[in-house]
């Protein structure tokens, strides 16, 4: 069984891009390193066949910062099966008025939101793994 790809947008202009990047990293590095891994988003679109093989027909979870949904769009375009799409902006909506920081560095509040989102994504990873196993 192949691992779940967790792919972030890493948008450079806003705090939400950094938050997406860090949430994905936390899942692949700390919360579910054995069953989840990441892939460079830009590479799967601009790269060669090898790059596409990293996502094509594989289970992916995308983590986007803003509603432009760049990671989701590009992963779908590259043929990945997007099982779940997360958006940092949705997390921000449940933390009204919070200053999360900038695209360079996050505030404590910003990190808090990253941690919560990472937990959600890790939960989804576990769910997908279970489904995959029960389907044999």
């Amino acid at each position, binding site marked *: 069984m192949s691992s779940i790809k967790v792919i972030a947008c890493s948008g450079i202009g*806003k*705090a*939400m891009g950094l938050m997406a990047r860090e949430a994905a990293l936390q899942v692949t590095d700390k919360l579910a390193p054995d069953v989840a891994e990441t892939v460079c988003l830009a590479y799967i679109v601009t790269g060669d066949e090898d790059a596409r093989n990293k996502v094509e027909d594989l289970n992916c979870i995308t983590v986007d910062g*803003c*509603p432009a949904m760049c990671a989701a769009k590009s992963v779908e375009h590259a043929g990945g*099966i*997007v*099982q*779940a799409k997360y958006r940092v*902006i949705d997390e*921000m*909506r449940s933390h*009204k008025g*919070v*200053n*999360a920081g900038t695209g360079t560095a996050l505030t404590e509040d910003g990190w808090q939101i990253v941690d919560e989102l990472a937990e959600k994504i890790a939960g989804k990873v576990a769910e997908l793994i279970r489904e995959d196993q*029960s*389907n044999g």
Partner: protein
Amino acid sequence: MSKTYAVLPCNGLDKCAGGVSKEAAVMLAENSDSEIICPVLLHASDARYEKITQEKPLLVIDGCATRCASKLAAEKKLKITEKINITEEAKANGITLGKGLHIGENEMKLAKIIVDKLTQVQESSKTEDSIEFPSKLTYEVYKKDKFVFRLPKEEGFYFNENDVWAYVVGNKARIGVTDFVQKSLSDIMFFTPPAIGNQMEQFEDAGNIESAKAVFEIISPVSGTILAINEKLMEAPELINQNPYEQGWIAEMELSDFENDKELLHTFDGYFEVLKRKVDEFHVKH
């Protein structure tokens, strides 16, 4: 008369969601003049459905994220008008799909919710279309760095200096904010709408929108009564960022004294100068 579709369900056999896609398609066909496209037959012989897909808008119903029906439609070069995903719908409606492959009570309920929603969408979009709005707008643009600020040139658009527009047809108007507002706010996360039925004077507030940066009070360019609000913004305020003149409009109003309101409104030429000045000042400050 209600709208009809050519319905392409995935009809997947390996997951319960596939069964729900079929059930929803059957219900739609029974409740309206919609016609079902069998994915297996479509795959084997696309000519069979040529007529239906030309006559009717295509509704694709996928069971899961593998999106086989969407992929099949794309492969056959069919233009998809609407997409439904059963797994996502189940989640959105708080329904857990069964592990088995048989359709149970819950699954039937979900299929019915989806079919109801599809027919309801058509009704509510009718009320939203109470004002005849141009299907396509032409824009003048003002560029600053990489940012592009659009402004519609169509006659009928009026603007106040609080960066809110009104598109006036007869005694009705649709209102919304300009590109300057949505760009300076950046990602809009909250929309507080004005109350329907509310009577307001010109320059009274018609709700507000909020991003991580600031709250913007929508100051009405016209006086009158709120007839409708853009319901879609409640779930997706980002539509204002995508296009504040088209899918991101705020509300529709019945006008009470437009001749008088007009005195303190700009048409395109006047506001375009205001917009340019504001953009320049904004960029100097930031």
